[in-house]
């Protein structure tokens, strides 16, 4: 297979297992490309991509922009903070105006779940979801799974625990979909108030005790506590959260095996993960960032290849 089954990347939910493997194999090649002396290929020189960020982002935005530039695409950036959105323009109007400038692809981050999907039904361009509210963040899940695959050789059969604020996390949902499709076993761990109610329907298990969860897993994905999405208190104090669900070096060393530690960033050092763990050899946090560029290049390349030049 050399083609994706979808025309947009709206969520991992809509991808087939073969799509994931194709994205990984393509990303392998791009990882080699971004480690060359000249880290650029001319493939997308006639494609224009708009990055629409209606919500703050550093890593994802930079990673997308770099991926686009490494592929030689033309890039325009848009941040809601400095735009006409403030003047009351609707999402569709904003995007239609941008597309009128002959843009082929839109990367969108939006606080509302379903924004990317909504856009894909209403405008004529290829849409990549860079995070829609608490729903999905597909490229993050792809790069997490790609990093796990890189570390272990494959994802199938591996035991992965996702720790922390699952309820508000689009990273968690996309990760669950991706890991399950690839044949991994997934457990969630965190305070009950931050776990989704109907997790069984996702085919995952829950372990409330962090030490037991870590003892069980091959890799742990430590999520950030998302204070900005919490409209009420979900746990008594940060200090209590850290004591029960924070990963420190003593806990990591007390396990009878070496596990791999992931974190999607940005890290709250000393909250969900201690500095010593974040900077240890077992953490692959910076590998994830590097892989993020390769994965996004792969996704953009594979989707762009479906935008045919009119005969």
């Amino acid at each position, binding site marked *: 297979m*050399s*083609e994706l089954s979808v025309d947009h990347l709206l969520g991992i939910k809509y991808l087939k297992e073969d799509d994931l493997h194709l994205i990984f194999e393509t990303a*392998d*090649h791009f990882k080699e490309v971004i480690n060359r*002396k000249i880290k650029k*290929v001319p493939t997308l020189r006639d494609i224009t991509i708009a990055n629409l960020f209606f919500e703050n982002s550093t890593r994802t935005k930079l990673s997308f922009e770099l991926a686009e530039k490494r592929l030689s695409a033309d890039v325009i950036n848009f941040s809601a903070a400095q735009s006409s959105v403030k003047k009351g323009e609707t999402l569709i109007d904003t995007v239609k105006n941008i597309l009128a400038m002959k843009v082929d692809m839109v990367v969108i981050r939006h606080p509302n779940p379903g924004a990317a999907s909504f856009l894909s039904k209403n405008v004529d361009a290829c849409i990549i979801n860079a995070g829609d509210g608490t729903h999905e963040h597909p490229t993050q899940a792809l790069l997490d799974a790609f990093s796990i695959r890189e570390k272990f050789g494959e994802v199938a059969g591996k035991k992965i625990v996702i720790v922390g604020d699952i309820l508000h996390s689009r990273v968690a949902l996309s990760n669950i979909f991706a890991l399950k499709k690839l044949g991994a076993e997934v457990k969630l761990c965190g305070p009950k108030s931050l776990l989704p109610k109907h997790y069984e329907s996702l085919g995952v298990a829950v372990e409330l005790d962090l030490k037991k969860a870590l003892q069980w897993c091959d890799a742990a994905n430590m999520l950030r506590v998302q204070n900005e999405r919490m409209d009420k208190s979900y746990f008594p104090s940060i200090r209590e959260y850290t004591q029960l669900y924070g990963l420190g070096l003593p806990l990591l060393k007390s396990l009878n095996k070496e596990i791999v530690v992931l974190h999607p960033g940005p890290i709250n050092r000393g909250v969900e993960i201690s500095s010593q763990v974040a900077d240890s050899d077992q953490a692959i946090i910076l590998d994830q960032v590097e892989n993020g560029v390769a994965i996004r290049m792969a996704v953009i390349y*594979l989707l762009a290849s479906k935008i045919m030049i009119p005969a």
Partner: protein
Amino acid sequence: MDFSKTVLIGLQPRGAFVLDRLIELLTKNYGIIDITHGKLDTTFFRDDFRRTDKPHAANATQMNVAVEDKCIVFIDDVLYTGRSIRAALTAIESYGRPSEIELLTLIDRRFSRHLPIQPDYVGRQIDSLQNDKVEVKWKEVTDEDAVYLIKETL
């Protein structure tokens, strides 16, 4: 023979087979050892992206060699339109500035070029029509070493 300034580059996917055989030949028959070589994939440098029904699948690039100031020999199985060689000429720039680049192909389909590209070393030159197919088979993949010229069936 001095190969110290020479780097043999097999163009993926099928030029890699020619490269492997060539190295075997040079080693066994001519006693030349330590030939610097690499395998280059040109998928992302092709000029037909978004112009074919299905995108070309990329292959692994293995370029753990220095190309700066070296004499590069591109190695491929069939030279047809010359467009893959054009892509390879762009791709190699990512690794440095060679002093010279030459081209070796097993088969040269003459009179079919789209670009001003000619081989320096040729196994065999053949005349073929545009819709004919040239198929090179390798023992590594099939059960024989052979080159077939398949005429278009009307």
